[in-house]
């Protein structure tokens, strides 16, 4: 109670800037969905959609032609697709951090960001799933991962990390979708109630499930939301932990390491936060949400980026230390090769982008200047993609057996598939921005001072509002 009161008088800056009431907030957020799309949206959709179509064409191409069109070989069996899969799964994790972990920590600033961040999670999982699917080579065998009773009587090997991975990604995708949808229900009801055309009324009416904002419903809804946040928090940690098991449960030098799970989780959140900044810095201007996603929100994310950057910097250091201290010559060679071998430039880029450049956020100017943080976030995105590439390629291309050493060179198909994934992601995100409320309206409204009876002047002193 006292903390609350303090924060109102001299605490952190306001969550929302501008003179907003419930009605103006609704107009602002729903207006984007209800009015005709603006020019920037069409231009962005044309560009991103082109890349998305390119990705779809490349997917068909690789399915028809087989994995030989990529640069992978017998030695380096995991090339771009697996590095990119880990990259996209990692991107998703910041969405869950913002929506679930910060919710549990009662960080109210998350409410301006969580809807978009959860959408980002969902689309990142779609991209990630696509890469593992096409990397199977024989895509028609994808259903072998399902423990389905069939006439062949063959079942998955549940002792394999790849089976775990399937369960983790499938659960993560499903829970993220439900979390996102539950959050959307009240806002879909807003769109339904504002809809003028019969079609919109029908569509949003069905999607809103008959939500009527009843206090008895809010009562269960808030509890369900809290439960989902409490479930998504261990889930998000487990997902990247299990993704790291794909590497760590093998015996490949550089992969077989106990630091992998925490290192992967920290890296995932780091890269995802950078992606949130990459998306939000332009969108808050283009959509006119500068007052809702303020510099203060962006600054908070920059601070989280410093923290996670230091964590992964530490993990890089510990990897090196354990290779040296463990005394295993294969492990030692792998790390020497990682730094000064043929992929050394990738390692250098990774250190520069992930450990060095984010340190600029210690300076206030970089944390409060949108274009500067956008540039840094792009570097982090690049660095985190290279981190996954370094892990996949450098460990595989030279392991125990020098006669099987081989370089990995990506082909044009690798590059186009990578670019196509970004196209798919950004297209999905643009469609989301256009057709669904990008800001969690009911949550932002609830965070306005006028929404809390305890702060309003006419509070009755009967003690009923005390918890």
């Amino acid at each position, binding site marked *: 109670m006292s903390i609350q009161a303090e924060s109102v008088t001299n605490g952190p800056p306001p969550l929302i800037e501008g003179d907003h009431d*419930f009605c103006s907030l*609704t107009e602002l957020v729903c207006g984007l969905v209800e009015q005709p799309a603006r020019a920037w949206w069409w231009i962005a959709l044309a560009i991103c959609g082109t890349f998305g179509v390119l990705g779809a064409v490349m997917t068909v191409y690789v399915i028809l032609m087989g994995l030989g069109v990529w640069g992978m070989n017998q030695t380096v069996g995991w090339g771009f697709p697996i590095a990119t899969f880990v990259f996209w799964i990692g991107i998703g994790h910041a969405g869950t951090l913002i929506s679930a972990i910060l919710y549990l920590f009662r960080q109210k600033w998350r409410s301006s960001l969580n809807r978009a961040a959860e959408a980002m999670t969902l689309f990142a999982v779609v991209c990630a799933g696509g890469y593992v699917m096409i990397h199977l080579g024989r895509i028609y065998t994808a259903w072998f991962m399902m423990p389905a009773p069939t006439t062949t009587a063959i079942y998955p090997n549940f002792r394999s990390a790849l089976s775990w991975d399937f369960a983790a990604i499938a659960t993560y995708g*499903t829970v993220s979708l439900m979390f996102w949808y539950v959050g959307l229900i009240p806002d879909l009801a807003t769109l*339904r109630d*504002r809809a003028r055309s019969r079609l919109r009324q029908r569509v949003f009416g069905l999607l809103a499930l*008959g939500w009527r904002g*009843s206090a*008895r419903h809010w009562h*269960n809804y808030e509890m369900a939301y809290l439960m989902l946040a409490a479930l998504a928090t261990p889930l998000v940690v487990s997902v990247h932990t299990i993704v790291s098991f794909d590497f760590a449960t093998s015996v490949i030098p550089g992969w077989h390491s106990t630091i992998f799970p925490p290192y992967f989780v920290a890296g995932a959140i780091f890269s995802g936060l950078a992606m949130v900044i990459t998306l939000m810095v332009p969108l808050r201007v283009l959509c006119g949400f500068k007052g809702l996603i303020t510099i203060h929100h962006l600054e908070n994310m920059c601070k989280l980026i410093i923290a996670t950057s230091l964590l992964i910097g530490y993990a890089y250091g510990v990897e090196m230390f354990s290779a040296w201290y463990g005394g295993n010559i294969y492990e030692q060679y792998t790390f020497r090769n990682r730094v000064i071998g043929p992929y050394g430039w990738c390692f250098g880029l990774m250190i520069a982008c992930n450990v060095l450049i984010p340190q600029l956020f210690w300076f206030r100017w970089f944390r409060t200047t949108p274009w500067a943080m956008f540039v840094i976030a792009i570097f982090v995105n690049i660095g985190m993609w290279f981190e996954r590439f370094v892990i996949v390629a450098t460990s595989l291309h030279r392991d125990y057996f020098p006669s099987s050493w081989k370089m990995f060179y990506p082909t044009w198909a690798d590059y186009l598939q990578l670019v196509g994934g970004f196209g798919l992601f950004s297209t999905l995100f643009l469609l989301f921005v256009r057709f669904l409320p990008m800001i969690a309206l009911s949550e932002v409204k609830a965070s306005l001072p006028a929404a809390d009876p305890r702060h309003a002047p006419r509070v009755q002193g009967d003690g009923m509002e005390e918890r």
Partner: protein
Amino acid sequence: MSTIPALGPDRVGPLYGALARFAGPVELLDAVRRLHALGYHRLDAYSPFPIHGMDQALGLKRSKVPVLVLAGGLFGAAFAQTLQWYQSAIAYPLITAGKPLNSTEAFVPITFETTILYAAFGAVFGMLALNGLPRLYHPVFRGKSFARASTDGFFLSVEARDPLFDRREIVALLEALGGTEVELIER
């Protein structure tokens, strides 16, 4: 003094109840508390966001969602362990990596994920079931300006099922509490 639109107090018709609009969360909370104190219990409040303290004002008990989450989680854990044991040790017994057929430890990750999945199903579908959703229609949607309830409208409904409900008195009572646009709603 507003008149009672749509349905006069003398007209005989199956009623859902009465609906009144309030200026803001404070006024709504205040009205709910007073009505509850008067003995009305079939009340509901409608607002674009959850109002702090409304649960207590309506006398709501702790939500049952956590019980359903626990049930979902327990089911998920039991289901995953049983499935993995049956398929690995009975249906398709194949020794891999020298591990026992029923290698419980290796089954932990999938068990964990499935536990979370079914617990989340419990939370979402449990919440919807407890709320009686999805539902295509509800009498309160007949309210003249009820569409505002998802934007900036704060409404209170008293159901006709309430033993204290009197269609002649309730309108005056809701107006005395500060309600505007008071109307009787057909079922």
